[in-house]
């Protein structure tokens, strides 16, 4: 950067600084009043916080330990639920199979056909028993 350019930039900086500082020095009364109120409010809130601060830091120091304990408890609960999960899953599968059988029309039809064949099986058994008796009696 040339010396003249540097000088122009320096002059620009000086003028902006003067303008901005002038605006600070001549803030309107309403804004100055609001700033004063804000300052007093901050100091007052801090004093109120200080009164609480005598008590709060005592339990606030326990916050990390409490957070760790709560996290550990949450992990235990989640792990406990996961250990029961296979049994629950198996029960759910069985219940699901039962429902599937009940809802399966083909399975029901096969069962009914098997009922009809019982007459044949009963006759065959009786015939065989009669034959055994005849052989014994003869």
């Amino acid at each position, binding site marked *: 950067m040339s010396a003249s350019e540097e000088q122009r930039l320096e002059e620009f900086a000086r003028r902006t600084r003067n303008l901005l500082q002038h605006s600070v020095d001549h803030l309107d009364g309403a804004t100055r009043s609001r700033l*004063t109120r804000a300052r007093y409010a*901050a100091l007052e809130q801090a004093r109120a916080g*200080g009164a609480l601060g005598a008590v709060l830091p005592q339990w*606030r120091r326990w916050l990390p330990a409490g957070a760790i304990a709560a996290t550990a408890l949450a992990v235990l609960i989640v792990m406990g639920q996961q250990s029961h999960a296979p049994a629950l899953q198996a029960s759910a599968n069985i219940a699901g199979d039962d429902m599937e059988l009940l809802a399966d029309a083909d399975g029901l039809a096969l069962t009914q056909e098997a009922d009809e064949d019982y007459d044949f099986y009963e006759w065959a058994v009786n015939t065989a028993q009669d034959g055994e008796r005849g052989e014994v009696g003869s």
Partner: protein
Amino acid sequence: MNIQAQLLTESAGFAPLEVFALPESTPLESAQLADFLATVERPAFRIAQIALRHDQDALDAVQDAMLRLVRRYAERPAAQWRPLFYRILENCVRDMQRRRRTRNGVMAWLPWRGGGDDEQDEQDLLAQAPDHAPTPAAEAQTAQTLQALERAVAQLPARQRQAFLLRSIEGMDVAATAEAMNCSEGSVKTHYFRALQTLREQLGEYWT
């Protein structure tokens, strides 16, 4: 916990544990702190106002920064208050800018919202421009120039804006600015120089 860690915690919205309570201070120390706040409140307000371009938000930021300083750093040596305060103020300004972006993003979806906020802000700034020039013409010229400068400063990158305002409004030297910005003096010089160059390019018509 060092200052940087405390400020990082603070900007994330959490109070550092060991500095939460307002320290026990003598009336003399309280008066010293109140005096310090009285000296920084006006430049702090202007810095926040130019960055946020909103009076009420600027007041809120200044009050929040005061409160945090008093609550957490009042026990520090008085020489540290100024850089600490302006670092806290910058955190407050950036938090407010983030919240505003979020709020505007949500409000943009509402069909009954008009887009006239920026215009309103411009009108408000014009109406609130300082009125202390000797003649109405000079007064109008000063207001116009100041308004253009504020608009241009608000558009600077955050670090350039911070360096420029701390040096121009608060009158900090490079070392103090570096402490307030938590960076090296070389970085301050770079940010300040780039800010000046950008502003001069944008405001040339008002300054020639």
